[in-house]
């Protein structure tokens, strides 16, 4: 199964749309509750990152019999130092974003902790690409 969603940078009112759609789909397909939860948490954090930092993004979800693969590609400022960005507590979020309770520097580590496989690549001034994989025992 294949799904795609667009994300608009700066629009917090729609952050979480893709993850809530994914949750509905996965609940129908997968009996392992834990996988569903972990995967939607990872996607939500990735969506928020795009809204908070990038101009626009696209979420591409492929659900297979053995895994769920999610790609989140954005056009945005990119990340200069990925290992720094992965550190819990490090954030470059704006004051406005922080006031909303985001930008605590926990997003990327939440994504990593809630996925089986996590890849991040970024080009400064171009954008960032994330790939999140959850492996399924049976579907």
């Amino acid at each position, binding site marked *: 199964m294949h799904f795609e969603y667009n994300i608009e940078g700066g629009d917090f*009112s729609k952050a*979480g749309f893709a993850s809530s759609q994914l949750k509905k789909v996965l609940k129908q397909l997968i009996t392992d509750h834990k996988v569903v939860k972990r995967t939607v948490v990872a996607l939500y954090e990735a969506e928020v990152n795009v809204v908070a930092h990038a101009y626009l993004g696209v979420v591409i979800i492929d659900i297979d019999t053995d895994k769920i693969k999610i790609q989140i590609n954005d056009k945005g400022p990119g990340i200069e130092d990925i290992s720094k960005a992965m550190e819990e507590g490090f954030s470059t979020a704006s004051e406005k974003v922080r006031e*909303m309770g*985001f930008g*605590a520097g*926990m997003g990327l580590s939440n994504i990593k902790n809630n996925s089986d496989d996590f890849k991040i690549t970024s080009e400064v001034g171009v954008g960032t690409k994330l790939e999140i994989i959850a492996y399924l025992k049976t579907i």
Partner: protein
Amino acid sequence: MLKYNRMKVSDIINELGLTVFSGQSGIDKEITGGYVSDLLSDVMGHAKEGQIWCTLQTHKNVMAIASLKDLSAIILVKGFKPDEDMAEQGEVEGVPVLGTTETTFEIVGKLYELLK
């Protein structure tokens, strides 16, 4: 994980005299414990299904998290009211959005006494 008393959202509304802003349809849900944080990623990373969440954040994203994490209800502290779209989302998701005029420290203390 600690075992708490079995209480429904409606029980704590009555016991603590909480305001119900929206999401009335979810008040029969059982509470499995509580979580307190104003950092959304902290809640996303650490809150557990069925917990009641105390916060001062009043925007719509609170509901997205409550729904994704299957939390039982939200309590807004210190007289804060939900933004209009947050209240609407509570109604859509069936997650009660509750309120108190007390501070987080006071309301959580009482909540803990009831649940422990």
